[in-house]
């Protein structure tokens, strides 16, 4: 695979505030990267820097071995061959669909333009609307015009700024599949920004999680999902709920009981390792399917949690459990939002017994 985009030590300050800080990233040709993070974490600023709309304070952006921006100079936005699909699509209201698509290819010969436009119109199922104005189209059609317009000049890299945020939830998935197929068909390298992790799982080959101007983790979506590298990543992506545990070199104690850990060292990332003879409060990432619930309380199944909140979902009842309000328990281990699904109907405050099924445990320090 050839590397298309390389970003080295990119920092951006806007109005004396650090928005991006020493960010490194590289993307292979043909890959689709999903950039996720909370609002204000710097993901749109990163897109703008690549497009040439924001000036970096330090660092380097290279596409196809051509330096677009470094400490010395910056290539003008219009000369970067970077396409962009804006959040509001930025379609020209005074031009027809056809004219919008032709906007960036006026340097081609008339025949080449017509061929390119007709090709895109047909692929994007817009032929019937070629002479319509933008306000005459639906939201989905407008988005397709924006894609056609951006693809027409055959950019080396396509940037998409929250492309699905204006689309009806029911249409969104269908459209994502369709656009991914299209980008693959054109072998277009793309970066898209979103704050919705589900969009990344559907749309992207690679995923980058950002927070406060830093890149927290960059990998394939399924890898990040299985092996988040920090509390922040797992928490932002809502990969499960948190169970506080007192971890020592010999094992982990929680309010759901002692965890059977085969080799604790292998479960912990090096920074969380606990020196021999000491203990540390860490958080265990628990996915709903890793919890076993027993509603019937008896000598074998001792109550260790109670129902805090109930909602109904297509996967059955969704419960949030909290630890028992027992004065004797270690308050630092108390939990209040342990999420699990069950077909058993329970009542608010009903006491239940919960066990964690053995699996590869993931512990994190929540200050990370």
């Amino acid at each position, binding site marked *: 695979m050839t590397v298309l985009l390389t970003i080295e030590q990119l920092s951006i300050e806007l109005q004396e505030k650090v928005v991006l800080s020493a960010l490194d990233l590289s993307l292979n040709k043909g890959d689709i990267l999903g950039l996720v993070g909370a609002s204000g974490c710097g993901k749109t600023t990163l897109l703008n820097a690549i*497009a040439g*709309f924001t000036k970096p304070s330090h660092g380097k952006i290279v596409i196809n071995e051509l330096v677009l921006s470094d400490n010395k100079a910056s290539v003008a*936005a219009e000369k970067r061959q970077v396409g962009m699909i804006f959040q*509001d699509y930025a379609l020209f209201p*005074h031009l027809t669909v056809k004219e919008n698509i032709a906007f960036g290819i006026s340097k081609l010969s008339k025949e080449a333009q017509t061929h390119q436009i007709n090709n895109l119109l047909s692929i994007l199922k817009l032929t019937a609307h070629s002479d319509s104005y933008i306000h005459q189209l639906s939201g989905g059609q407008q988005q397709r015009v924006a894609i056609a317009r951006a693809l027409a000049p055959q950019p080396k890299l396509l940037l998409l700024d929250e492309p699905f945020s204006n689309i009806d939830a029911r249409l969104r998935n269908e459209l994502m599949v369709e656009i991914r197929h299209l980008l693959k068909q054109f072998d277009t390298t793309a970066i898209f920004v979103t704050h919705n992790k589900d969009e990344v799982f559907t749309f992207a080959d690679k995923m980058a999680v950002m927070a406060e101007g830093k890149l927290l983790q960059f990998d394939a979506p399924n890898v990040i999902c299985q092996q988040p590298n920090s509390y922040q990543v797992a928490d932002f992506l809502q990969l499960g709920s948190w169970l506080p545990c007192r971890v020592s070199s010999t094992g982990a104690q929680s309010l759901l009981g002692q965890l059977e850990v085969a080799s604790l060292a292998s479960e912990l990332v090096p920074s969380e390792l606990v020196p021999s003879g000491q203990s540390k409060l860490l958080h265990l990432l628990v996915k709903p399917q890793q919890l076993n619930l027993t509603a019937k309380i008896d000598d074998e199944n001792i109550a260790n949690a109670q129902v805090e909140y109930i909602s109904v979902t297509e996967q059955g009842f969704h419960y949030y459990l909290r630890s028992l309000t027992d004065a004797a328990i270690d308050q630092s281990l108390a939990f209040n939002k342990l999420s699990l699904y069950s077909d058993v109907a329970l009542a608010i405050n009903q006491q239940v017994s919960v066990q964690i099924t053995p699996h590869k445990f993931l512990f994190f320090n929540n200050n990370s």
Partner: protein
Amino acid sequence: MIALFNSKTWKLSSYLIALVLMVPVLVMLVGGIGASTQLFGHLWQTVLPTYLENTLWLAILVVLLALFFGVISAAIITQTNIIFKQQLRWLLLLPLAMPAYLVAYLYTDLFDYAGPVQRSLRAYFDWQAPSDYWFFDIRTLPGAALMLALVLFPYIYMLTRGAFEQQDQNLIRASRLLGLSARQTFFKVALPLARPAIAVSVSLVLMETLADFATVQYFAVNTLTTAIYDTWLGYGDIGAANALASVLMLLVLFVVLAEQRSRAGLRHQSARPNSKRELLQLSFIQQCIASTFCWALVVCGFLLPLTLLIIMAVEYSDMAQLSVLLSTGINSLKVSVIAATIAVLIALLLGLYQRLHADRYRKIPQQISGFGYAVPGTVLAMAMLSTLGPLDHWLNAGAEFLGFSAPGLILSGSLFAIVFALVVRFSAIANGAIDSGIKQIPMSLDYAPASLGVGLTGTLTKVHLPLLRPAIFVAWLLVFVEAMKELPAVLLLRPFNFETLSSQIYQLISDEMLEQGALGAILIVLFGLLPIVLLNKSKDKV
């Protein structure tokens, strides 16, 4: 996101144009204020106190009357179920199209000793001499104030009505649920909320009043504007005229600053979508009083003067008048078309500079270019004379030094001075219209062309200018109409034997012969209606 472009030529032109627009007034202020304390001392001991006193009294009376007319009519239209509301809503704007000096002349004609009203009264009551009865004298300071208020109150009506209409109805409902009556709610909630808008409109009325020249001149009320005119044209004393103009300019600056302070309060206005308002149901007597009030304003401020003009036009128009009208009309058109075109080009240059360029101070050129709207025409004329006059002398001296023949007063004695003054005075209007057009273009459209490989020229010619076409039209039209109506600057700056519609009508009014120019006057009123129609259309859209 940063602004995309950084064209040095554009930047330089923007700052240069802004500077050129501001220089004359600066020259005048420096010359006027620095004139000499001796001159000020002399003026202060002779005429200045009276002029100032008259100016201030006029301003106070006009504001009080305009507030009375404007706020009450706005309240009636927005808060009550007055009949013919939809018609009155826009009819109340029409007096804006009527120049105050026309109304002044027409009412003087109507109510003078020799006018039809007093004649009929004398005939009816069989009075023989003026000593037999008392009748108000309209050619006084209160009379002038009434005339000005009759045509300026729509500013207050328009902005106050807008403020009332945009008020969050839930605030009104909350007040009613907390036990206040409709009347108490109006005085304790609606009116205080509209206060910033009222303050802004009062400052507009004040500026127009301070700038008025023809009405007070006709009524022989000596204010600062008439004093400037007389000092320059009567005594040829440019130093004293400059000093008076500077005093007037400082008064206006004070109003502008006060307005800006009050504008800060506008942020408190609610922008929440309006739910249906509950209207005050008027009784029959109340309906009669409210309708009389509103219709009286429409009739006195617009319909009656227009009717009188039409009667005059029908009675006295002839071919000779038409040919004069044609030649002055062409002059007016020439000056206004040139001024409007230049003002719009400048507004585009500065507006798009502000929008598209990466310069921390990019707003400054546009802000500077807009200040001229506050400068009264008389002051502006003095500024032109005190800047372009010396420039002409230098040019002539330079030409003679180089062995050429002296070109004469090519700057101060030609259309150049009038056009320059009009552009300075009305650039703010063009800026406003172009700016609101630019603001309607989403920011992403500035960036989209670059993402498609298109540079600055393409962005301008293919995206911004086509999208701004309606705004360009509106800006051009508004400046054109204002330029057609402008009087004092034209009067002081026009070349010898050059008459425009407004200057000709003013001359005829001075000579008590408006009949000769009734057609031209109607034309000016009709031009004045254009922006009101536009204004009404855009307000309705909101």
